[in-house]
């Protein structure tokens, strides 16, 4: 099952690359995503066995993130049916097939990240997501996207290199343990195993000289994967990359790949927790989370480009995720729930942003006005999206953010709670003014009605609707399977 989940998109990518006809590419893309999601949903009921000596296994965390990835990919692929059709730039069918192939490879690599239990393989998978997504950002082939791609490549490659160093330090820290080494030594690497479950067994017995290495390794892993996750001050590639990429790619980047990077940090956090270093790790998580929140808040106010606005909002929410795990207890539950809600909402917003960009031809908030009159469905969803992303009821984000704050108060960390409230308020002010400016007011004269009709193609509206419904539902009622999954996950990271 796991193998098929990972190999399916790869096979599809190869097919797409060789069959250059556009119609076939799109069919393969959509069918792959449907099959992928079906397989994932089946795994909820029938957990798939581990393969490769335990190197690949889908535990509850992985399953949760994998489901998010799969859902987002499905909506993105349905959206692409409308997107690639109406793309006005004259483009040979060839580059479209490369685009679809890279998308499928992106899906494959993200699936691999969620299924990896071995640290080095996890590293390879996350690096693979960087390399698979770089061509996607460069789709528009202009100066801006080139600049964004370059920054993305350099910054993410450097950070992944640092994460590799973190992996090496981790293997040093578990290395000279007596006795246990013979039990779980890995035949392939000839040394202590780096599989998560084995690590969790060995790590409680570490001596203090090894703890130094473990801590250093966590710092390096955190910096490396945290850059990819978008935590400040390492997030500088994020606004450029997420705003210059085509919107469906942005939705995947913000909604899925940031979560995958977070998974890397979570695995390292699990190991630290088992080694009684949880507090050390939690301090780092909370401080970087608060810093990201602050940074994002400053840059959201008076932001003029609405896709950059959404990108900074991703930074903010990643900060919240980090704080949640850093607080521990119910905070972890809140964080995981928030990951689900945020991904769904952000993906929807990016897809809508794509619609707006196509109709208005500009990303500037000053120029995009009166959306209710021009693209009514998009504007309505955009308006609801404001509520969702800011954490207002009745959306799910309200519940998760509220739970996060409650944890902070319960733990007596009033400074953290006050900071969160303050920055969330600032963010709300910034986003509300931007969002409302877009939807209200008179429409500018240059927009033709015919143009706007084609912009509301069914394929471009249905996916966002599909995404907002769960978010709305989760605000009122958390289905039991989800609640159970979240609780299991939270327990893994020192939660309830």
């Amino acid at each position, binding site marked *: 099952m796991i193998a098929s989940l990972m190999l399916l998109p790869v096979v599809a990518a190869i097919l797409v690359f060789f069959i250059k006809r556009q119609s076939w590419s799109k069919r393969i893309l959509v069918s792959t995503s449907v099959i992928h999601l079906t397989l994932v949903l089946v795994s909820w009921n029938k957990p798939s066995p581990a393969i490769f000596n335990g190197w690949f296994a889908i535990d509850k965390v992985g399953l949760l993130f994998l489901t998010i990835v799969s859902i987002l990919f499905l909506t993105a692929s349905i959206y692409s049916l409308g997107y690639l059709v109406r793309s006005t730039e004259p483009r040979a069918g060839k580059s479209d097939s490369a685009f679809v192939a890279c998308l499928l490879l992106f899906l494959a690599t993200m699936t691999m990240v969620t299924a990896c239990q*071995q640290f*080095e*393989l996890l*590293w*390879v998978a996350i*690096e693979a997501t960087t*390399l698979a997504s*770089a061509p996607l950002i*460069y789709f528009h*082939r*202009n*100066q*801006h996207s*080139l*600049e*964004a*791609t*370059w*920054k993305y*490549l*350099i910054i993410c*490659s*450097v950070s*992944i*290199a*640092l994460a*590799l*160093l973190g*992996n*090496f330090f981790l*293997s*040093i*820290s578990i*290395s*000279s343990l007596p006795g246990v080494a013979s039990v779980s030594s*890995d035949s*392939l*690497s*000839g*040394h*202590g195993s*780096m599989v998560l479950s084995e690590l969790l067994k060995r790590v409680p017995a570490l*001596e203090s*000289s*090894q703890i*130094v*290495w473990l801590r*250093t390794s966590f710092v390096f892993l955190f910096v490396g994967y945290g850059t990819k996750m978008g935590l400040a001050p390492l997030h500088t590639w994020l*606004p*450029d990359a997420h*705003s*210059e990429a085509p919107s469906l790619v942005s939705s995947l980047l913000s909604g899925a790949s940031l979560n995958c990077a977070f998974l890397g940090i979570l695995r390292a956090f699990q190991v630290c927790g088992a080694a009684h270093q949880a507090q050390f790790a939690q301090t780092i998580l909370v401080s970087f989370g608060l810093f990201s929140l602050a940074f994002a808040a400053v*840059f959201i106010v*008076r*932001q*003029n480009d609405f896709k*950059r606005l959404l990108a900074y909002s991703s930074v903010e929410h990643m900060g919240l995720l980090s704080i949640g795990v850093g607080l521990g207890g119910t905070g972890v539950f809140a964080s995981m729930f928030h990951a689900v809600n945020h991904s769904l909402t952000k993906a929807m917003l990016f897809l809508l942003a794509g619609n707006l960009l196509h109709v208005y031809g500009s990303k*500037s908030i*000053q120029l995009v006005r009166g959306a209710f009159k021009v693209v009514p469905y998009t504007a309505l969803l955009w308006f609801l999206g404001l509520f969702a992303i800011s954490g207002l009821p009745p959306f799910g984000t309200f519940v998760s953010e509220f739970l996060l704050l409650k944890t902070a108060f319960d733990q007596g960390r009033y400074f953290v709670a006050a900071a969160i409230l303050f920055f969330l308020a600032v963010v709300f002010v910034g986003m509300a003014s931007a969002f409302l400016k877009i939807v209200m007011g008179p429409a500018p004269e240059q927009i033709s009605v015919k143009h706007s009709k084609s912009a509301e193609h069914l394929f471009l509206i249905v996916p966002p609707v599909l995404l907002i419904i769960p978010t709305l539902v989760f605000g009122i009622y958390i289905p039991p399977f989800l609640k159970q999954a979240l609780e299991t996950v939270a327990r893994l990271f020192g939660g309830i």
Partner: protein
Amino acid sequence: MVSVNEGLLVGLVLTNLFYLATGRLGTYVKLFIVQTLLVSFFGLVVNQGYLSTRVIILSVIGLVIKAFVFPALLTKSIRTAKLKREIQPLVGFGTSLFIGILMFGLSSWLGSRMPMPVEASSRLVVPVVFFTVFTGLFLIISRSKAITEVISYLVLENGIYLFGISFVKEAPMLAELGVLLDVTVAIFVMGIVIRHLRTEFESLDVNKLSTLKDWGV
């Protein structure tokens, strides 16, 4: 006996300092070849006791790719770009060299603070690894040509590779392969992007890549 290990490591430190002091792109490529050779020899010398086929194969493959393929690609890139020097780095060369000396001191101090639970081949390995990593990071930040950024990334990877082969008993094979794979693919992808950079921007000056801003239209 004069320690060959220490000699190789000191040679590595000197190449790093040289990187910081010079501005010629051709010199960068030559220094990279020297660094790769030093790191590979160090790997062979350090693992003399247990030269398994795996270590030998990895070292040879790494050597071939990094000492022949990459320099060829880089030189071709430099020649097509008609670029010879770093004209205006963010931090001047003399200052970079001075900062390099400070970084070496810092890495030695850091290295002395990390207790070694395993047998290290030389007390210098961890400081030199840190120093190479810092040099790579500093070069990426302070130099302004895209090709130099790629070379600095390679320096960073060299440092990490050095750490990997010094502790090959403990370090995972997959990660060594991963380093190689990572560097190879990254080089190719970056090479392609550099080609596009040159056509789009007509210059390889990374400081010009600042059109995406947060404020202003």
